[in-house]
């Protein structure tokens, strides 16, 4: 036994097992919608696209799902025209809403004082070229501050309009570093800014969000709530319990122009009924996670300050020959850490293009599982796993009546599952039913291989003891030839499942392939080693 422990493969096995246990204990396994409940969308694009474009579609879809708050969404592109989106929501009405949001073309607008500076249609190109300034760079080493920059090209008409509209929108504030410093007005980036709806906000929420941060969650910089409302062209009302008579008159006359109303969750039922009586279609916009209501309900995506350069601060009038229009503009900002900077950069990029997906969606197929059913599935899968292992033990014992050989099979078999789960934990794989089927198959393959090992080793045992022990090594080799061939055929049949747009099934192939690799490289050699020791020590007795 002591000799056994010194074998490198044995030590390796123990170490890997420990690592697997540590990962399973700390990081744990993540479960797909089959078990945790939720919805999987299989999205098919109208035609195949490049991997860059597919990635962009992926990010846009991710963002659109994110609008619904934290749904633990996972969006993965597969093949050249498929996207698989999974998220934790199974209520059919909510799922429909998410589907609609993914589908609908959003409308991007950069707004200054309720006027559109430029919209999604005006943006010709977004430069992803570092030579045009795209990217992020370290500007403050001590505080790890990065400046990110996104250059983009506007159409000539739009850039003319833009230059005129933001002319002199900065105010000098003094001198610093020998340069004139300015305080500039902010532009507001919206996707689907309300245009045909009136907005009703309850006074409690209104006072809560009196100061709106310049980023969706809390920030150090704030803008007054009214300034944000000023960016809209539609009327808004702050409601204190009930509509007062003046509000009622105004809202009634608004109905000539607007037919819909967005209301905050705190608006009372009676007010909603009043609105419906007038004829309004009322939509309650819930608060989404930590995001301010004013952000999510108005479709605000980002707040960006104008830079003095583009505001032509050093030119006296628009008619001056020195007045410049810029077709290439940049949006830039600062963030701590390169990852954060990259994230902000990607976010803005997606906002700018979010008006439209680069390629239309052909169809969305859906699978929803309620969490209650998912929990049942998980329980059942566990039972199957346990019973499968026990059955194997019973069958092997009946066949060989050799407990010493059968027990290690169970041990290495169980360790194989543990290692497999460990790998799945390390790669953050989401366990689904297909993966469980793969794990069960792995148990089966493992048992078959161990039987081959035992039978090869026991073969010709009745001949002379010495000859038998000499050939144990050769027999192990025979057994491994068979196992390698079997594993290779299994791999041959599973590999094609990848990359063919069968996204939902990769779990099956992934677990089988990882399981086969672990088996052939680690657990089978360990078992062969143990079995050889047991047989040779038994024969020499």
């Amino acid at each position, binding site marked *: 036994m002591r000799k056994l422990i010194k074998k490198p493969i044995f030590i390796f096995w123990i170490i890997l097992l420990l690592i697997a246990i540590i990962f399973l204990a700390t990081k744990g396994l993540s479960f797909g919608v089959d078990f945790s409940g939720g919805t999987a969308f299989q999205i*098919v694009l*109208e035609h195949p696209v490049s991997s860059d474009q597919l990635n962009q579609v992926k990010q846009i879809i991710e963002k659109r799902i994110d609008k619904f708050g934290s749904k633990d969404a996972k969006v993965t592109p597969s093949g050249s025209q*498929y996207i698989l989106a999974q998220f934790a929501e199974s209520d*059919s*009405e909510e799922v*429909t809403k998410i*589907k*609609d949001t993914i589908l*609908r*073309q959003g409308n991007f607008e950069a707004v200054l004082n309720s006027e559109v500076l430029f919209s999604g249609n005006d943006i010709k190109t977004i430069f992803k070229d570092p030579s045009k300034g795209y990217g992020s760079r370290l500007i403050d080493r001590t505080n790890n501050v990065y400046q990110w920059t996104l250059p983009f090209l506007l159409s000539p008409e739009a850039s003319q309009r833009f230059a005129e509209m933001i002319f002199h929108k900065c105010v000098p504030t003094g001198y610093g570093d020998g340069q004139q410093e300015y305080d500039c007005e902010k532009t507001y980036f919206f996707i689907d800014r309300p245009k045909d709806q009136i907005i009703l906000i309850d006074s409690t929420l209104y006072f809560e969000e009196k100061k709106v941060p310049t980023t969706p969650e809390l920030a150090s910089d704030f803008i007054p709530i009214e300034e944000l409302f000023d960016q809209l062209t539609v009327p808004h009302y702050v409601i204190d319990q009930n509509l007062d008579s003046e509000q009622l008159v105004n809202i009634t006359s608004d109905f000539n122009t607007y037919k819909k109303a967005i209301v905050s969750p705190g608006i009372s039922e009676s007010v909603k009924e009043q609105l419906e009586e007038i004829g309004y*279609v009322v939509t309650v916009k819930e608060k989404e996670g930590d995001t301010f209501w004013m952000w999510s309900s108005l479709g605000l995506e980002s707040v960006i300050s104008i830079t003095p350069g583009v505001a032509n601060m050093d030119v006296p009038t628009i008619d001056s020959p020195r007045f410049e229009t810029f077709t290439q503009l940049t949006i830039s900002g600062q963030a701590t850490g390169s990852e954060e900077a990259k994230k902000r950069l990607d976010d803005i990029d997606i906002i700018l293009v979010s008006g439209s997906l680069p390629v*239309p*969606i*052909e*169809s*969305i*197929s*859906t699978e*929803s599982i*309620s969490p*209650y059913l998912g929990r*049942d*599935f998980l*329980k*059942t899968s566990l*039972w*199957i796993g346990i019973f*499968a292992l026990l*059955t*194997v033990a019973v069958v*092997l014992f009946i*066949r060989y009546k050799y407990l010493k050989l059968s027990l290690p099979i169970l041990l290495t078999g169980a360790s194989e599952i543990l290692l497999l789960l460990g790998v799945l934990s390390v790669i953050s794989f989401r366990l689904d*039913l297909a993966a469980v*089927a793969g794990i*069960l198959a792995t148990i*089966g393959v493992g*048992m*078959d291989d161990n039987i*081959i090992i035992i*039978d090869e080793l026991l*073969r010709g045992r009745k001949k002379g003891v010495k000859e038998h022990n000499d050939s144990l090594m050769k027999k192990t080799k*025979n057994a491994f*030839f*068979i196992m*390698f*061939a*079997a594993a290779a*055929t*299994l791999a*041959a*049949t*599973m*590999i*094609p499942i990848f990359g*063919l*747009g*069968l996204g*939902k099934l990769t779990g*099956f192939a992934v677990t*089988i392939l990882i399981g086969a690799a672990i088996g052939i490289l680690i657990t089978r050699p360990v078992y062969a080693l143990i079995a050889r020791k047991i047989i040779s020590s038994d024969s020499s007795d």
Partner: protein
Amino acid sequence: MKFFKKNYSKLMYIPLVLGIIALFLAFVYPGLEKGIDLKGGNQINIHFDDQKDFSLIEPTLKEKFNLAEVHISETKSINQYGLLIELSLQEDIELVKEQRSKLDYTANLETVKEQVNTTIVQPLEEKGFITEDDYLDITLAKNIPDLKAGVNELIIIANNNFTNQVTNIIKGQLDLTDDSKIQIREVAPTLGKDFVRSSAKAGIIAFALLVAVILLFFREIIPSGLIILAAVFDVIFALAGMAIFNISLSLTTIPALLMLVGYSVDTDILLTARVLKDKTEGPIDSANTSIKTGLTMTITTVSTVIVMLLISYFSQLLVVFEISVILLCGLVGDVISTWTFNAPALIRYAERKNKNRH
């Protein structure tokens, strides 16, 4: 007791006869069916604790929607009831889709809008699949690409609403609460077509790889060919099993069939390796020792598969149940193909080879 004796060749009639029967079952009668994964449609799977009356679901759905097929099956286990409802594609929406492919997007915007309005928007609105809100994008479209995207959107939304209406009718009929155990699937026919294509591709690549791997390991044409034939036989047997038990070709069953190939050639590889490589025994003796090991392997696997089958049946875990049935049928086929086809043919091949050498 020895399985292979002098007259081993006669065994080969068994797979011949069974193979023909299996082919008949799989492809003639009852034949295989494509599941909703491959042809598109809706599937709703519900579990509940008490028996419920579902007799009105089918007539209600058929009356309300233009559906070619509504298939409802009830499953019972010790403590649970389940319903599996499968709907074919909604004919009205399919008709609209056909109209969509006829649209002439080269005409001017207003003409196309008019066309879209009469052939797509109106029929969908009449059937109650969309409301004014849903086709706002089409009314407001400023150019042809926007209009085209709007039309695509609208059809998906109509499909969506159809699924929701169906779900609500079923939930209403069965009196289901929000915490019910329900699984809803909706597969677009285009996705189904893609799946068929991908699966066929996967099958062909898998077969080519399998041939390559087997040839690489054994480097002899006839024994390799026998292994591959045996694998094909297993798949045919599994297909026959699917036809008998009414399991359709789907995204779960196709990979299961692929896995079955990898799974079942184990015993053929074992047999071939022993018969060809072990020079201490004659081919018949080698085959006889192999069958012991091979049957132990198969019996062990079959017993785990039976466990899977029973538990998944009683807990109505459809995916695992279907995989188990396929594996079980395939493994039965494997016993036949390995020991009554591959083994006798291989023994004859090895004996002839030995004779030529002497």
